[in-house]
């Protein structure tokens, strides 16, 4: 095709958008609706991802080691005499009654060795050792003034009541159960305190939202393509006369096709720009409304280019492919005819 023809047809494509403006507005309207929904779904996915990441970063598991204090005060405290009501009720045992073989961690060195083993577990990002002294200090700092006396009484009776422990940060919540099992099974670990249910819920919500958004984006993408094809088809039937004249004066199929493709692409670009503006406006309103309760919304500027890129890609692809497909189908069917309208 000659360069003059390409220039002319490009101009025609632009002109057609204006000349057939009612049809253009209809196509743009539907395309914008699809794109805004796609954009919303994307932004929701992004925000959920970001929130999950924040939550995952705070995903800390406390581990208590199997030392002397865990035997006395811990969940699995040993009762030397089952009939001893005090022991079974309070879980406390006389310190002197505990043989060294009853527990696995006898000093800080052994506790640190357990920490090293914990670090080797997959999905464990970091292990922070907390000695029994540090634990007691932190406990005293965090409890209320009146309750601090309880620690002092225990201290007076059996010395420091706290066990050695570790604060473990997990990489992700996806393999939460397996990781907790591995930690629990590590030699020297007495008990693990975690928010497993919350982790599972968060992970579940994230997967569900991602899946829903994936389907929304996919389905709307296909809908956009069908809508553009359909609009071009209607436009084509409206412009049968024009096409028939083109064929009568010796236009090739590509000459007939090009203005429609340019028109489709242009509708896509216009829709993309309008959608970007609308999403920006909606997102800003949503951000202002939710700022008091939900302050972790991703700034729009961070995602603006990505969104525009996606919109343009969808618009141009749907416009070009939709119109190319429909016009080719039409030309194949009625391409050499121009008399019978």
């Amino acid at each position, binding site marked *: 095709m000659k360069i*003059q*023809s390409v220039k002319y047809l490009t101009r025609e494509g632009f002109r057609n958008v204006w000349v057939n403006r009612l049809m253009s507005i209809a196509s743009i309207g539907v395309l914008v609706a699809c794109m805004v929904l796609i954009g919303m779904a994307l932004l929701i996915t992004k925000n959920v991802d970001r929130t999950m990441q924040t939550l995952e970063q705070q995903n800390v598991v406390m581990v208590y080691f199997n030392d002397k204090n865990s035997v006395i005060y811990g969940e699995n405290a040993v009762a030397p005499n089952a009939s001893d009501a005090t022991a079974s009720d309070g879980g406390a045992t006389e310190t002197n009654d505990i043989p060294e073989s009853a527990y696995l961690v006898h000093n800080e060195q052994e506790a640190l060795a357990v920490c090293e083993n914990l670090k080797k577990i997959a999905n464990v990002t970091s292990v922070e050792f907390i000695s029994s002294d540090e634990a007691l200090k932190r406990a005293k700092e965090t409890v209320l003034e009146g309750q601090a006396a309880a620690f002092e009484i225990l201290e007076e009776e059996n010395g420091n009541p706290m066990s050695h422990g570790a604060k473990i940060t997990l990489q992700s919540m996806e393999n939460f159960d397996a990781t907790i099992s591995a930690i629990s099974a590590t030699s020297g670990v007495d008990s693990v305190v975690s928010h497993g249910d919350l982790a599972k819920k968060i992970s579940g919500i994230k997967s569900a939202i991602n899946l829903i958004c994936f389907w929304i984006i996919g389905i709307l993408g296909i809908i956009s393509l069908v809508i553009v094809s359909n609009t071009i088809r209607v436009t084509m039937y409206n412009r049968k*006369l024009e096409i028939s004249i083109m064929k*009568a*004066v*010796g236009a*090739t199929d590509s000459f007939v096709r090009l203005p429609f493709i340019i028109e489709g692409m242009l509708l896509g670009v216009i829709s993309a720009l309008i959608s970007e503006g609308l999403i920006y406006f909606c997102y800003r309103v949503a951000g202002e409304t939710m700022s008091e309760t939900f302050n972790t919304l991703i700034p729009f500027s961070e995602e603006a280019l990505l969104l525009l890129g996606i919109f343009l890609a969808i618009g141009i692809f749907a416009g070009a492919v939709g119109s190319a497909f429909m016009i080719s189908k039409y030309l194949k069917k009625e391409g*050499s005819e*121009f*008399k019978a309208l």
Partner: protein
Amino acid sequence: MDNQVFPNDDFILTPDTVFPEDKHIVTPEKPIIEFRGVSKTYQTGTHALKDVNIQIHPGEFVFVVGASGAGKSTFMKLIMREEKANTGDVLVNGYNLTKMPRKQIPMLRRTMGIVFQDFRLIPTMDVFDNVAFAMHVVGEKPNVIRREVAKALSQVGLGHKARSKPAELSGGEQQRVGLARALINKPKLLIADEPTGNVDPNMSYEIVEMLSRINQQGTTVLMVTHEHNLVRDFHHRVIMLEGGTIVADNAEGTI
């Protein structure tokens, strides 16, 4: 036209050789339109044309007449390669239309100008653009288009209405725009399908006079019409179709 020279393609007829026994090769001195034993039957079973043999030579003005269903439309459709013959050969402007592939149809149509009964002007374009359109199709340069379209419009007496929309013109004026468009690429053959069907009697005469002048300048004109008075008054060759066959072929314009 440069796109007519494809020596290796057997659907294009070489200009300087005559092979009488080879039915798809003719010379340009030979007929511009030739039907050799052409029959056309539609899928519905209608026999539109039956063993038609005819020759129309360069520079001729030919009226095609006949009642509805006589085969006039099929005759014209075969020439424009809107339909394909079932048997026989249709030779037009150096192309053998029976053997021509579909992608060559635009090249064939660029060698002819077509005038329609219903004018076929694009309503959203003004008069100038409607005519220029045909030149854009062949990839002509903008300055040539401006010059030639202005010339063509003044030749049909519509230079002053270049920026009017078709709806603002009378039937006769619209047909003259259609004529300017058909002639803008200087075709060797002009096909007019009932060009006077939608205009008043006075304008009918004016249009046929215009076609006659074009014919005198060397363009072959083939005009389908129902108006017998026009045929009688203009004294051109008349081909009469009836039941898909040529029943009369009179050189002196008698029916």
